[in-house]
Protein backbone atom coordinates (compact mmCIF):
# COMPACT_ATOMS: atom_id res chain seq x y z
CA UNK A 1 0.00 0.00 0.00
CA UNK A 2 2.75 2.39 0.99
CA UNK A 3 4.66 1.58 -2.15
CA UNK A 4 1.57 2.11 -4.23
CA UNK A 5 0.90 5.44 -2.58
CA UNK A 6 4.43 6.75 -3.16
CA UNK A 7 4.28 5.70 -6.79
CA UNK A 8 0.89 7.27 -7.25
CA UNK A 9 1.92 10.54 -5.63
CA UNK A 10 5.08 10.64 -7.73
CA UNK A 11 2.96 10.16 -10.81
CA UNK A 12 0.65 12.95 -9.72
CA UNK A 13 3.58 15.32 -9.22
CA UNK A 14 4.90 14.44 -12.66
CA UNK A 15 1.54 15.24 -14.21
CA UNK A 16 1.45 18.52 -12.34
CA UNK A 17 4.88 19.49 -13.55
CA UNK A 18 3.87 18.54 -17.09
CA UNK A 19 0.77 20.68 -16.94
CA UNK A 20 2.74 23.62 -15.57
CA UNK A 21 5.40 23.37 -18.25
CA UNK A 22 3.01 22.86 -21.16
CA UNK A 23 1.04 25.92 -20.12
CA UNK A 24 4.12 28.04 -19.64
CA UNK A 25 5.40 27.35 -23.11
CA UNK A 26 2.02 27.74 -24.77
CA UNK A 27 1.72 31.13 -23.11
CA UNK A 28 5.21 32.10 -24.18
CA UNK A 29 4.41 31.26 -27.77
CA UNK A 30 1.62 33.81 -27.76
CA UNK A 31 2.08 36.68 -30.17
CA UNK A 32 2.33 40.20 -28.86
CA UNK A 33 4.85 41.66 -26.52
CA UNK A 34 3.89 41.42 -22.88
CA UNK A 35 5.45 44.81 -22.30
CA UNK A 36 3.31 46.37 -25.01
CA UNK A 37 0.21 45.03 -23.30
CA UNK A 38 1.31 46.31 -19.94
CA UNK A 39 1.97 49.73 -21.37
CA UNK A 40 -1.22 49.91 -23.38
CA UNK A 41 -3.10 48.97 -20.25
CA UNK A 42 -1.84 52.10 -18.65
CA UNK A 43 -2.77 54.07 -21.73
CA UNK A 44 0.53 54.21 -23.63
CA UNK A 45 2.02 52.34 -26.50
CA UNK A 46 5.52 51.03 -26.71
CA UNK A 47 6.44 52.87 -29.90
CA UNK A 48 5.68 56.16 -28.22
CA UNK A 49 8.56 55.72 -25.80
CA UNK A 50 12.30 56.15 -26.01
CA UNK A 51 14.53 53.07 -25.64
CA UNK A 52 15.60 54.15 -22.14
CA UNK A 53 12.00 54.57 -21.08
CA UNK A 54 11.26 51.15 -22.53
CA UNK A 55 14.10 49.55 -20.61
CA UNK A 56 12.91 51.27 -17.47
CA UNK A 57 9.38 50.01 -18.00
CA UNK A 58 10.67 46.50 -18.80
CA UNK A 59 12.57 46.40 -15.55
CA UNK A 60 9.56 47.83 -13.71
CA UNK A 61 7.42 44.90 -14.90
CA UNK A 62 10.21 42.34 -14.38
CA UNK A 63 10.29 41.36 -18.05
CA UNK A 64 14.01 41.78 -18.55
CA UNK A 65 14.84 38.08 -18.24
CA UNK A 66 15.11 35.25 -20.76
CA UNK A 67 12.54 32.60 -21.55
CA UNK A 68 14.11 29.77 -19.57
CA UNK A 69 15.42 32.01 -16.84
CA UNK A 70 11.90 33.21 -16.19
CA UNK A 71 10.58 29.65 -16.38
CA UNK A 72 13.00 28.24 -13.83
CA UNK A 73 12.64 31.31 -11.70
CA UNK A 74 8.87 30.92 -11.65
CA UNK A 75 9.03 27.17 -11.13
CA UNK A 76 11.52 27.47 -8.29
CA UNK A 77 9.45 30.05 -6.51
CA UNK A 78 6.23 28.17 -7.17
CA UNK A 79 7.76 25.21 -5.39
CA UNK A 80 8.26 27.47 -2.41
CA UNK A 81 4.66 28.58 -2.46
CA UNK A 82 5.37 31.93 -4.08
CA UNK A 83 3.39 32.16 -7.27
CA UNK A 84 4.85 35.50 -8.21
CA UNK A 85 3.33 38.88 -8.95
CA UNK A 86 0.53 39.49 -11.36
CA UNK A 87 1.97 41.54 -14.19
CA UNK A 88 -1.06 43.69 -14.78
CA UNK A 89 -2.66 43.77 -11.36
CA UNK A 90 0.62 44.34 -9.58
CA UNK A 91 -0.37 42.10 -6.70
CA UNK A 92 0.95 38.79 -5.44
CA UNK A 93 -0.81 35.97 -7.26
CA UNK A 94 -1.32 34.12 -4.00
CA UNK A 95 -3.29 37.09 -2.67
CA UNK A 96 -5.39 37.19 -5.83
CA UNK A 97 -6.09 33.49 -5.58
CA UNK A 98 -6.90 33.72 -1.90
CA UNK A 99 -9.44 36.36 -2.82
CA UNK A 100 -10.97 34.58 -5.82
CA UNK A 101 -10.60 30.93 -4.96
CA UNK A 102 -13.30 30.74 -2.25
CA UNK A 103 -15.87 32.04 -4.73
CA UNK A 104 -14.99 29.40 -7.28
CA UNK A 105 -14.69 26.64 -4.71
CA UNK A 106 -18.12 27.46 -3.38
CA UNK A 107 -19.50 27.47 -6.90
CA UNK A 108 -17.69 24.35 -8.06
CA UNK A 109 -18.28 22.53 -4.80
CA UNK A 110 -21.99 23.18 -4.77
CA UNK A 111 -22.18 22.41 -8.49
CA UNK A 112 -20.48 19.05 -7.94
CA UNK A 113 -22.76 18.18 -5.04
CA UNK A 114 -25.78 19.36 -6.98
CA UNK A 115 -24.81 17.48 -10.11
CA UNK A 116 -24.22 14.30 -8.14
CA UNK A 117 -27.56 14.63 -6.39
CA UNK A 118 -29.41 15.41 -9.60
CA UNK A 119 -27.53 12.90 -11.75
CA UNK A 120 -27.78 10.04 -9.31
CA UNK A 121 -31.36 10.93 -8.47
CA UNK A 122 -32.42 11.01 -12.08
CA UNK A 123 -30.71 7.76 -12.97
CA UNK A 124 -32.08 6.10 -9.84
CA UNK A 125 -35.55 7.21 -10.74
CA UNK A 126 -35.12 6.12 -14.34
CA UNK A 127 -34.07 2.69 -13.17
CA UNK A 128 -36.94 2.42 -10.72
CA UNK A 129 -39.76 3.61 -12.95
CA UNK A 130 -41.35 0.73 -14.84
CA UNK A 131 -43.87 2.55 -16.98
CA UNK A 132 -42.25 2.47 -20.43
CA UNK A 133 -43.04 5.94 -21.83
CA UNK A 134 -41.87 7.67 -18.65
CA UNK A 135 -38.79 5.48 -18.44
CA UNK A 136 -37.84 6.31 -22.02
CA UNK A 137 -38.44 9.99 -21.47
CA UNK A 138 -36.32 10.00 -18.33
CA UNK A 139 -33.59 8.03 -20.07
CA UNK A 140 -33.40 10.65 -22.83
CA UNK A 141 -33.23 13.58 -20.43
CA UNK A 142 -29.46 13.37 -19.85
CA UNK A 143 -28.81 13.62 -23.59
CA UNK A 144 -30.76 16.84 -23.59
CA UNK A 145 -28.81 18.00 -20.54
CA UNK A 146 -25.50 18.02 -22.30
CA UNK A 147 -26.86 19.22 -25.62
CA UNK A 148 -27.52 22.65 -24.17
CA UNK A 149 -24.73 25.23 -24.29
CA UNK A 150 -23.80 26.18 -20.73
CA UNK A 151 -23.88 29.91 -21.38
CA UNK A 152 -27.23 29.71 -23.10
CA UNK A 153 -28.69 27.76 -20.22
CA UNK A 154 -27.30 30.34 -17.81
CA UNK A 155 -28.92 33.22 -19.66
CA UNK A 156 -32.18 31.33 -19.84
CA UNK A 157 -32.16 30.59 -16.12
CA UNK A 158 -31.45 34.24 -15.38
CA UNK A 159 -34.37 35.30 -17.54
CA UNK A 160 -36.78 32.84 -15.99
CA UNK A 161 -35.76 32.61 -12.35
CA UNK A 162 -34.20 36.00 -11.77
CA UNK A 163 -36.09 38.40 -13.96
CA UNK A 164 -39.43 36.77 -14.69
CA UNK A 165 -40.10 35.23 -11.30
CA UNK A 166 -37.59 37.07 -9.16
CA UNK A 167 -36.79 34.05 -7.01
CA UNK A 168 -33.04 34.33 -7.13
CA UNK A 169 -30.63 37.19 -7.69
CA UNK A 170 -29.08 37.21 -11.14
CA UNK A 171 -25.61 38.24 -10.12
CA UNK A 172 -23.32 38.80 -7.26
CA UNK A 173 -20.87 36.82 -5.23
CA UNK A 174 -22.49 37.20 -1.85
CA UNK A 175 -24.79 34.85 -0.06
CA UNK A 176 -26.29 31.49 -0.67
CA UNK A 177 -29.07 32.72 -2.87
CA UNK A 178 -26.70 34.18 -5.42
CA UNK A 179 -25.04 30.78 -5.67
CA UNK A 180 -28.17 28.90 -6.65
CA UNK A 181 -28.53 29.82 -10.32
CA UNK A 182 -24.83 29.61 -11.24
CA UNK A 183 -24.46 26.32 -9.41
CA UNK A 184 -27.45 24.86 -11.24
CA UNK A 185 -26.11 26.10 -14.57
CA UNK A 186 -22.73 24.58 -13.90
CA UNK A 187 -24.22 21.37 -12.55
CA UNK A 188 -26.48 20.54 -15.49
CA UNK A 189 -23.91 19.12 -17.94
CA UNK A 190 -22.14 17.12 -15.23
CA UNK A 191 -25.44 15.88 -13.85
CA UNK A 192 -26.38 14.75 -17.34
CA UNK A 193 -23.14 12.82 -17.67
CA UNK A 194 -23.56 11.20 -14.26
CA UNK A 195 -27.16 10.30 -14.99
CA UNK A 196 -26.22 8.78 -18.31
CA UNK A 197 -23.37 6.73 -16.93
CA UNK A 198 -25.30 5.58 -13.90
CA UNK A 199 -28.27 4.73 -16.09
CA UNK A 200 -26.06 2.49 -18.16
CA UNK A 201 -24.60 1.09 -14.99
CA UNK A 202 -28.08 0.15 -13.83
CA UNK A 203 -28.89 -1.35 -17.21
CA UNK A 204 -25.83 -3.52 -16.89
CA UNK A 205 -26.35 -4.40 -13.26
CA UNK A 206 -29.97 -5.42 -13.72
CA UNK A 207 -28.74 -8.18 -16.00
CA UNK A 208 -26.27 -9.49 -13.45
CA UNK A 209 -27.10 -12.87 -11.94
CA UNK A 210 -26.61 -11.57 -8.41
CA UNK A 211 -29.64 -9.38 -8.90
CA UNK A 212 -31.63 -12.55 -9.58
CA UNK A 213 -30.12 -14.02 -6.42
CA UNK A 214 -31.28 -10.96 -4.52
CA UNK A 215 -34.78 -11.16 -5.94
CA UNK A 216 -34.91 -14.86 -5.14
CA UNK A 217 -34.27 -14.04 -1.49
CA UNK A 218 -37.61 -12.27 -1.54
CA UNK A 219 -36.36 -8.68 -1.56
CA UNK A 220 -38.60 -6.06 -3.09
CA UNK A 221 -37.59 -4.16 -6.18
CA UNK A 222 -36.80 -1.06 -4.17
CA UNK A 223 -34.65 -3.04 -1.76
CA UNK A 224 -32.79 -4.79 -4.54
CA UNK A 225 -32.09 -1.51 -6.29
CA UNK A 226 -30.93 0.22 -3.13
CA UNK A 227 -28.85 -2.58 -1.62
CA UNK A 228 -27.51 -4.45 -4.62
CA UNK A 229 -28.03 -2.23 -7.64
CA UNK A 230 -26.87 1.25 -6.70
CA UNK A 231 -23.43 0.54 -5.36
CA UNK A 232 -22.44 -1.71 -8.21
CA UNK A 233 -23.93 0.58 -10.83
CA UNK A 234 -22.23 3.59 -9.29
CA UNK A 235 -18.70 2.22 -9.51
CA UNK A 236 -17.87 3.88 -12.87
CA UNK A 237 -19.24 7.12 -11.50
CA UNK A 238 -16.33 7.60 -9.14
CA UNK A 239 -13.77 7.81 -11.93
CA UNK A 240 -16.05 10.20 -13.72
CA UNK A 241 -16.35 12.55 -10.75
CA UNK A 242 -12.59 12.85 -10.85
CA UNK A 243 -12.55 13.60 -14.55
CA UNK A 244 -15.35 16.14 -14.30
CA UNK A 245 -13.19 18.44 -12.16
CA UNK A 246 -11.57 19.77 -15.32
CA UNK A 247 -14.93 20.32 -17.00
CA UNK A 248 -16.21 22.12 -13.96
CA UNK A 249 -13.29 24.57 -14.09
CA UNK A 250 -13.97 25.11 -17.80
CA UNK A 251 -17.63 25.65 -17.10
CA UNK A 252 -16.76 28.08 -14.32
CA UNK A 253 -15.10 30.38 -16.86
CA UNK A 254 -18.38 30.78 -18.74
CA UNK A 255 -20.67 30.73 -15.74
CA UNK A 256 -18.67 33.29 -13.83
CA UNK A 257 -18.70 35.57 -16.85
CA UNK A 258 -22.45 35.35 -17.25
CA UNK A 259 -23.30 35.68 -13.59
CA UNK A 260 -20.68 38.38 -12.97
CA UNK A 261 -19.10 36.26 -10.29
CA UNK A 262 -15.69 37.20 -9.18
CA UNK A 263 -14.01 33.84 -9.35
CA UNK A 264 -10.95 32.15 -10.66
CA UNK A 265 -12.59 31.17 -13.95
CA UNK A 266 -13.12 34.76 -15.00
CA UNK A 267 -9.71 35.71 -13.71
CA UNK A 268 -8.21 32.99 -15.87
CA UNK A 269 -9.96 34.14 -19.01
CA UNK A 270 -8.86 37.73 -18.52
CA UNK A 271 -5.35 36.73 -17.58
CA UNK A 272 -4.98 34.71 -20.77
CA UNK A 273 -6.13 37.67 -22.82
CA UNK A 274 -3.67 40.06 -21.26
CA UNK A 275 -0.93 37.42 -21.15
CA UNK A 276 -0.53 37.70 -17.43
CA UNK A 277 1.62 34.59 -17.35
CA UNK A 278 2.10 34.23 -13.58
CA UNK A 279 -1.64 34.39 -13.00
CA UNK A 280 -2.51 31.90 -15.74
CA UNK A 281 0.23 29.57 -14.60
CA UNK A 282 -0.96 29.77 -11.03
CA UNK A 283 -4.54 29.05 -12.01
CA UNK A 284 -3.52 26.15 -14.19
CA UNK A 285 -1.34 24.85 -11.38
CA UNK A 286 -4.18 25.16 -8.91
CA UNK A 287 -6.77 23.52 -11.12
CA UNK A 288 -4.35 20.80 -12.17
CA UNK A 289 -3.59 20.20 -8.50
CA UNK A 290 -7.29 19.99 -7.78
CA UNK A 291 -7.68 17.55 -10.64
CA UNK A 292 -4.74 15.43 -9.57
CA UNK A 293 -5.70 15.43 -5.90
CA UNK A 294 -9.32 14.58 -6.59
CA UNK A 295 -8.28 11.74 -8.84
CA UNK A 296 -5.81 10.52 -6.28
CA UNK A 297 -8.55 10.48 -3.69
CA UNK A 298 -10.82 8.69 -6.12
CA UNK A 299 -8.19 6.04 -6.69
CA UNK A 300 -7.68 5.59 -2.98
CA UNK A 301 -11.42 5.47 -2.39
CA UNK A 302 -12.02 2.76 -4.92
CA UNK A 303 -11.14 -0.16 -2.65
CA UNK A 304 -13.73 1.10 -0.17
CA UNK A 305 -16.45 1.03 -2.78
CA UNK A 306 -15.28 -1.98 -4.69
CA UNK A 307 -13.57 -4.59 -2.52
CA UNK A 308 -12.27 -6.39 -5.59
CA UNK A 309 -9.76 -3.62 -6.15
CA UNK A 310 -6.79 -3.51 -3.85
CA UNK A 311 -3.67 -1.44 -4.11
CA UNK A 312 -1.46 -4.07 -2.56
CA UNK A 313 0.38 -6.60 -4.63
CA UNK A 314 -1.51 -9.83 -4.50
CA UNK A 315 -0.94 -13.43 -5.43
CA UNK A 316 -3.41 -14.63 -7.97
Amino acid at each position, binding site marked *: MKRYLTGRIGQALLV*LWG*AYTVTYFILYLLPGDTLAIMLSASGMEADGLSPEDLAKARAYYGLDKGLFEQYFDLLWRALHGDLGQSLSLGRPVTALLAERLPQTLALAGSAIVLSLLAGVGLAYLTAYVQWRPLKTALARLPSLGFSV*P*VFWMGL*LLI*QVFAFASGWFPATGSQGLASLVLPAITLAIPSAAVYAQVLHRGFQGVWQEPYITTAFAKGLSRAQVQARHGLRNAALPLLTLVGLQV*GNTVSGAVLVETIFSRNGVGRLAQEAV*LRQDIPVVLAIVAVSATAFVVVNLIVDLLYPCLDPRITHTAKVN
Partner: protein
Amino acid sequence: MTIHIPLTPNDTASAGVEARPAAGWKRRTRLQRAWQTLSPLLRRPGFSLALLIVLFALFAALAPHLLSHYDPYATSPADKLSAPGLEHWFGTDELGRDLYTRVVYGARLSVMAALLAVAIALCGGLGLGVLAGFAGGRVDAALMRLIDVLLALPGLLLALAIVTAIGFGTVPVAVAVGVGIIPGFARTTRAEVLRIKTLPYVEAARLGGASWARTLLRHVLPNAWGPVAVLATLDFGAAILATAGLSFLGFGAAPPAAEWGTLIANGRHFLITAPWVSLLPGLFVVAVVFSLNHLARSAEEHAR
Protein backbone atom coordinates in the same frame (compact mmCIF):
# COMPACT_ATOMS: atom_id res chain seq x y z
CA MET B 1 -35.87 -5.22 -15.38
CA THR B 2 -34.80 -5.80 -18.92
CA ILE B 3 -33.41 -9.23 -19.49
CA HIS B 4 -33.14 -10.22 -23.08
CA ILE B 5 -33.00 -13.87 -23.76
CA PRO B 6 -30.51 -14.45 -26.54
CA LEU B 7 -32.14 -16.42 -29.25
CA THR B 8 -29.54 -18.65 -30.71
CA PRO B 9 -30.19 -19.90 -34.19
CA ASN B 10 -31.03 -23.48 -34.37
CA ASP B 11 -28.20 -25.86 -34.41
CA THR B 12 -29.79 -28.84 -35.95
CA ALA B 13 -29.84 -27.93 -39.59
CA SER B 14 -26.13 -27.68 -39.86
CA ALA B 15 -25.20 -30.67 -41.90
CA GLY B 16 -25.43 -29.41 -45.42
CA VAL B 17 -29.18 -29.77 -45.67
CA GLU B 18 -29.67 -26.33 -47.16
CA ALA B 19 -26.84 -26.63 -49.60
CA ARG B 20 -27.57 -24.52 -52.65
CA PRO B 21 -26.00 -24.86 -56.05
CA ALA B 22 -22.42 -23.65 -55.77
CA ALA B 23 -22.87 -21.11 -58.53
CA GLY B 24 -25.71 -19.51 -56.59
CA TRP B 25 -23.44 -18.05 -53.97
CA LYS B 26 -21.99 -14.60 -54.46
CA ARG B 27 -20.28 -12.46 -51.87
CA ARG B 28 -22.46 -9.76 -50.35
CA THR B 29 -21.21 -6.23 -50.84
CA ARG B 30 -20.40 -3.96 -47.93
CA LEU B 31 -23.17 -1.59 -48.96
CA GLN B 32 -25.74 -4.35 -48.69
CA ARG B 33 -24.50 -5.21 -45.26
CA ALA B 34 -24.48 -1.59 -44.12
CA TRP B 35 -28.05 -1.27 -45.30
CA GLN B 36 -29.01 -4.36 -43.37
CA THR B 37 -27.56 -2.84 -40.21
CA LEU B 38 -29.16 0.53 -40.75
CA SER B 39 -32.65 -0.35 -41.89
CA PRO B 40 -34.03 -1.50 -38.53
CA LEU B 41 -32.76 1.74 -36.99
CA LEU B 42 -34.42 3.82 -39.67
CA ARG B 43 -37.75 2.33 -38.78
CA ARG B 44 -37.58 4.17 -35.44
CA PRO B 45 -39.17 7.61 -35.84
CA GLY B 46 -36.82 9.22 -33.30
CA PHE B 47 -33.75 7.99 -35.11
CA SER B 48 -35.07 9.13 -38.48
CA LEU B 49 -35.94 12.57 -37.17
CA ALA B 50 -32.52 12.96 -35.56
CA LEU B 51 -30.85 11.81 -38.76
CA LEU B 52 -32.92 14.30 -40.71
CA ILE B 53 -31.87 17.20 -38.47
CA VAL B 54 -28.21 16.25 -38.67
CA LEU B 55 -28.43 15.82 -42.44
CA PHE B 56 -30.08 19.24 -42.67
CA ALA B 57 -27.20 20.76 -40.75
CA LEU B 58 -24.67 18.97 -42.95
CA PHE B 59 -26.52 20.03 -46.08
CA ALA B 60 -26.65 23.61 -44.84
CA ALA B 61 -22.90 23.43 -44.38
CA LEU B 62 -22.41 22.29 -47.96
CA ALA B 63 -24.95 24.33 -49.87
CA PRO B 64 -26.54 27.02 -47.70
CA HIS B 65 -27.70 29.03 -50.71
CA LEU B 66 -30.15 26.27 -51.60
CA LEU B 67 -31.90 26.61 -48.26
CA SER B 68 -32.50 30.35 -48.25
CA HIS B 69 -32.74 33.10 -50.83
CA TYR B 70 -31.68 35.89 -48.46
CA ASP B 71 -28.19 37.30 -48.28
CA PRO B 72 -26.91 36.48 -44.78
CA TYR B 73 -24.79 39.63 -44.63
CA ALA B 74 -27.10 42.25 -46.19
CA THR B 75 -28.22 44.67 -43.52
CA SER B 76 -31.68 46.16 -43.71
CA PRO B 77 -32.05 48.80 -40.99
CA ALA B 78 -35.76 49.17 -41.64
CA ASP B 79 -36.46 45.54 -40.70
CA LYS B 80 -34.35 45.38 -37.57
CA LEU B 81 -35.49 43.04 -34.81
CA SER B 82 -38.70 41.90 -36.48
CA ALA B 83 -40.31 38.90 -34.86
CA PRO B 84 -40.41 35.45 -36.46
CA GLY B 85 -43.02 35.22 -39.17
CA LEU B 86 -43.70 33.89 -42.62
CA GLU B 87 -41.22 36.22 -44.27
CA HIS B 88 -38.47 35.78 -41.71
CA TRP B 89 -38.83 32.32 -40.18
CA PHE B 90 -36.52 33.05 -37.29
CA GLY B 91 -37.08 36.83 -37.33
CA THR B 92 -34.31 39.35 -37.95
CA ASP B 93 -31.38 40.60 -35.92
CA GLU B 94 -30.44 44.08 -34.79
CA LEU B 95 -29.29 45.03 -38.30
CA GLY B 96 -32.31 43.53 -40.03
CA ARG B 97 -30.53 40.45 -41.33
CA ASP B 98 -32.62 37.31 -41.75
CA LEU B 99 -31.79 35.08 -38.81
CA TYR B 100 -32.78 31.79 -40.39
CA THR B 101 -30.42 32.55 -43.26
CA ARG B 102 -27.66 33.37 -40.80
CA VAL B 103 -28.22 30.12 -38.95
CA VAL B 104 -28.09 28.19 -42.22
CA TYR B 105 -24.92 29.95 -43.36
CA GLY B 106 -23.50 29.63 -39.86
CA ALA B 107 -23.73 25.89 -40.26
CA ARG B 108 -20.82 26.00 -42.67
CA LEU B 109 -18.51 27.46 -40.05
CA SER B 110 -19.85 25.60 -37.05
CA VAL B 111 -20.12 22.21 -38.70
CA MET B 112 -16.76 22.60 -40.39
CA ALA B 113 -15.16 23.69 -37.13
CA ALA B 114 -16.67 20.75 -35.29
CA LEU B 115 -15.68 18.33 -38.04
CA LEU B 116 -12.17 19.69 -38.07
CA ALA B 117 -11.96 19.45 -34.29
CA VAL B 118 -13.18 15.88 -34.29
CA ALA B 119 -10.85 15.03 -37.16
CA ILE B 120 -7.88 16.43 -35.25
CA ALA B 121 -8.95 14.59 -32.11
CA LEU B 122 -9.50 11.41 -34.08
CA CYS B 123 -6.12 11.51 -35.79
CA GLY B 124 -4.26 12.48 -32.65
CA GLY B 125 -6.28 10.37 -30.28
CA LEU B 126 -6.43 7.30 -32.49
CA GLY B 127 -2.73 7.56 -33.18
CA LEU B 128 -1.77 7.94 -29.54
CA GLY B 129 -4.26 5.33 -28.40
CA VAL B 130 -3.23 2.73 -30.93
CA LEU B 131 0.44 3.38 -30.30
CA ALA B 132 0.01 3.16 -26.53
CA GLY B 133 -2.24 0.13 -26.69
CA PHE B 134 -0.12 -1.73 -29.20
CA ALA B 135 3.35 -0.80 -28.07
CA GLY B 136 2.60 -1.24 -24.38
CA GLY B 137 5.33 -1.02 -21.77
CA ARG B 138 7.25 2.22 -21.42
CA VAL B 139 5.84 3.84 -24.54
CA ASP B 140 2.38 3.22 -23.15
CA ALA B 141 3.30 4.59 -19.74
CA ALA B 142 4.87 7.72 -21.22
CA LEU B 143 1.96 8.38 -23.56
CA MET B 144 -0.56 7.86 -20.80
CA ARG B 145 1.24 10.39 -18.61
CA LEU B 146 1.06 12.84 -21.50
CA ILE B 147 -2.66 12.18 -21.77
CA ASP B 148 -2.95 12.71 -18.02
CA VAL B 149 -1.25 16.06 -18.39
CA LEU B 150 -3.70 17.07 -21.12
CA LEU B 151 -6.58 15.85 -18.99
CA ALA B 152 -5.37 17.78 -15.98
CA LEU B 153 -5.42 21.02 -17.96
CA PRO B 154 -8.96 22.40 -17.92
CA GLY B 155 -10.26 22.19 -21.48
CA LEU B 156 -11.45 25.72 -21.90
CA LEU B 157 -8.30 27.23 -20.39
CA LEU B 158 -6.17 25.16 -22.74
CA ALA B 159 -8.37 26.20 -25.66
CA LEU B 160 -8.20 29.85 -24.61
CA ALA B 161 -4.43 29.71 -24.46
CA ILE B 162 -4.21 27.98 -27.84
CA VAL B 163 -6.62 30.41 -29.47
CA THR B 164 -4.72 33.39 -28.17
CA ALA B 165 -1.50 31.75 -29.32
CA ILE B 166 -2.56 31.11 -32.91
CA GLY B 167 -5.16 33.82 -33.38
CA PHE B 168 -8.91 34.16 -33.64
CA GLY B 169 -11.10 32.50 -36.21
CA THR B 170 -12.79 29.25 -37.02
CA VAL B 171 -9.71 27.16 -37.70
CA PRO B 172 -7.82 28.09 -34.52
CA VAL B 173 -10.95 27.50 -32.47
CA ALA B 174 -11.36 24.10 -34.11
CA VAL B 175 -7.74 23.26 -33.40
CA ALA B 176 -8.08 24.33 -29.79
CA VAL B 177 -11.23 22.30 -29.30
CA GLY B 178 -9.74 19.34 -31.13
CA VAL B 179 -6.65 19.29 -28.95
CA GLY B 180 -8.90 19.48 -25.92
CA ILE B 181 -10.75 16.26 -26.81
CA ILE B 182 -7.70 14.25 -27.84
CA PRO B 183 -7.32 12.64 -24.39
CA GLY B 184 -10.79 11.15 -24.50
CA PHE B 185 -10.15 9.55 -27.86
CA ALA B 186 -6.73 8.33 -26.90
CA ARG B 187 -8.06 6.69 -23.75
CA THR B 188 -11.01 5.04 -25.45
CA THR B 189 -8.89 3.82 -28.35
CA ARG B 190 -6.23 2.48 -26.04
CA ALA B 191 -8.77 0.65 -23.90
CA GLU B 192 -10.37 -0.86 -26.97
CA VAL B 193 -7.05 -1.86 -28.49
CA LEU B 194 -5.99 -3.45 -25.22
CA ARG B 195 -9.28 -5.32 -25.01
CA ILE B 196 -9.32 -6.52 -28.60
CA LYS B 197 -5.63 -7.38 -28.60
CA THR B 198 -6.28 -10.24 -26.18
CA LEU B 199 -9.39 -11.58 -27.90
CA PRO B 200 -9.15 -15.10 -29.33
CA TYR B 201 -9.80 -14.05 -32.89
CA VAL B 202 -6.79 -11.77 -32.86
CA GLU B 203 -4.70 -14.65 -31.60
CA ALA B 204 -6.22 -16.83 -34.26
CA ALA B 205 -5.29 -14.33 -36.95
CA ARG B 206 -1.74 -14.15 -35.64
CA LEU B 207 -1.50 -17.92 -35.60
CA GLY B 208 -2.87 -17.89 -39.12
CA GLY B 209 0.25 -16.00 -40.09
CA ALA B 210 -1.11 -12.46 -40.16
CA SER B 211 1.46 -9.72 -39.57
CA TRP B 212 0.96 -7.15 -36.80
CA ALA B 213 0.14 -4.53 -39.40
CA ARG B 214 -2.52 -6.74 -40.95
CA THR B 215 -3.90 -7.67 -37.55
CA LEU B 216 -4.06 -4.03 -36.61
CA LEU B 217 -5.71 -2.87 -39.80
CA ARG B 218 -8.07 -5.76 -40.39
CA HIS B 219 -9.00 -6.84 -36.88
CA VAL B 220 -8.08 -4.40 -34.13
CA LEU B 221 -8.95 -1.07 -35.73
CA PRO B 222 -12.26 -2.10 -37.32
CA ASN B 223 -13.42 -3.64 -34.08
CA ALA B 224 -12.15 -0.77 -31.95
CA TRP B 225 -13.91 1.58 -34.33
CA GLY B 226 -17.40 1.04 -32.90
CA PRO B 227 -16.92 2.71 -29.52
CA VAL B 228 -14.58 5.26 -31.04
CA ALA B 229 -17.14 6.18 -33.71
CA VAL B 230 -19.80 6.56 -31.04
CA LEU B 231 -17.44 8.80 -29.11
CA ALA B 232 -16.70 10.75 -32.28
CA THR B 233 -20.40 11.35 -32.85
CA LEU B 234 -20.85 12.42 -29.25
CA ASP B 235 -17.79 14.64 -29.44
CA PHE B 236 -19.00 16.14 -32.70
CA GLY B 237 -21.88 17.50 -30.64
CA ALA B 238 -19.54 18.44 -27.82
CA ALA B 239 -17.26 20.21 -30.29
CA ILE B 240 -20.20 22.26 -31.58
CA LEU B 241 -20.89 23.31 -28.00
CA ALA B 242 -17.22 24.00 -27.25
CA THR B 243 -16.81 26.15 -30.37
CA ALA B 244 -19.99 27.93 -29.43
CA GLY B 245 -18.51 28.56 -25.98
CA LEU B 246 -15.35 30.04 -27.47
CA SER B 247 -17.35 32.13 -29.93
CA PHE B 248 -19.41 33.29 -26.98
CA LEU B 249 -16.23 34.55 -25.36
CA GLY B 250 -15.48 36.33 -28.64
CA PHE B 251 -12.96 34.08 -30.37
CA GLY B 252 -15.08 33.11 -33.35
CA ALA B 253 -14.95 33.75 -37.07
CA ALA B 254 -14.28 37.18 -38.52
CA PRO B 255 -17.51 39.18 -38.88
CA PRO B 256 -19.87 39.37 -40.66
CA ALA B 257 -19.65 35.58 -40.92
CA ALA B 258 -21.13 34.13 -37.78
CA GLU B 259 -20.94 30.74 -36.17
CA TRP B 260 -23.89 29.50 -34.20
CA GLY B 261 -22.18 30.43 -30.95
CA THR B 262 -21.63 33.97 -32.18
CA LEU B 263 -25.28 34.24 -33.17
CA ILE B 264 -26.39 33.18 -29.70
CA ALA B 265 -23.82 35.44 -28.11
CA ASN B 266 -24.81 38.49 -30.14
CA GLY B 267 -28.47 37.85 -29.61
CA ARG B 268 -28.14 37.67 -25.85
CA HIS B 269 -28.21 41.45 -25.60
CA PHE B 270 -31.80 41.29 -26.74
CA LEU B 271 -32.96 38.53 -24.45
CA ILE B 272 -35.49 40.81 -22.80
CA THR B 273 -36.64 42.78 -25.80
CA ALA B 274 -36.26 40.34 -28.70
CA PRO B 275 -35.69 36.89 -27.20
CA TRP B 276 -35.83 35.03 -30.51
CA VAL B 277 -32.53 36.50 -31.67
CA SER B 278 -30.76 34.34 -29.12
CA LEU B 279 -33.29 31.62 -28.38
CA LEU B 280 -33.94 30.33 -31.89
CA PRO B 281 -30.28 29.82 -32.87
CA GLY B 282 -29.82 28.32 -29.42
CA LEU B 283 -32.69 25.92 -29.91
CA PHE B 284 -31.31 24.99 -33.30
CA VAL B 285 -27.94 24.15 -31.75
CA VAL B 286 -29.65 22.14 -29.03
CA ALA B 287 -31.63 20.25 -31.67
CA VAL B 288 -28.54 19.40 -33.70
CA VAL B 289 -26.45 18.36 -30.71
CA PHE B 290 -29.31 16.40 -29.20
CA SER B 291 -29.83 14.64 -32.52
CA LEU B 292 -26.16 13.74 -32.68
CA ASN B 293 -26.31 12.34 -29.16
CA HIS B 294 -29.41 10.41 -30.05
CA LEU B 295 -27.79 8.93 -33.14
CA ALA B 296 -24.72 7.94 -31.18
CA ARG B 297 -26.76 6.35 -28.42
CA SER B 298 -29.03 4.49 -30.81
CA ALA B 299 -26.06 3.16 -32.74
CA GLU B 300 -24.42 2.10 -29.50
CA GLU B 301 -27.53 0.39 -28.17
CA HIS B 302 -28.03 -1.30 -31.49
CA ALA B 303 -24.48 -2.60 -31.51
CA ARG B 304 -24.81 -4.08 -28.04
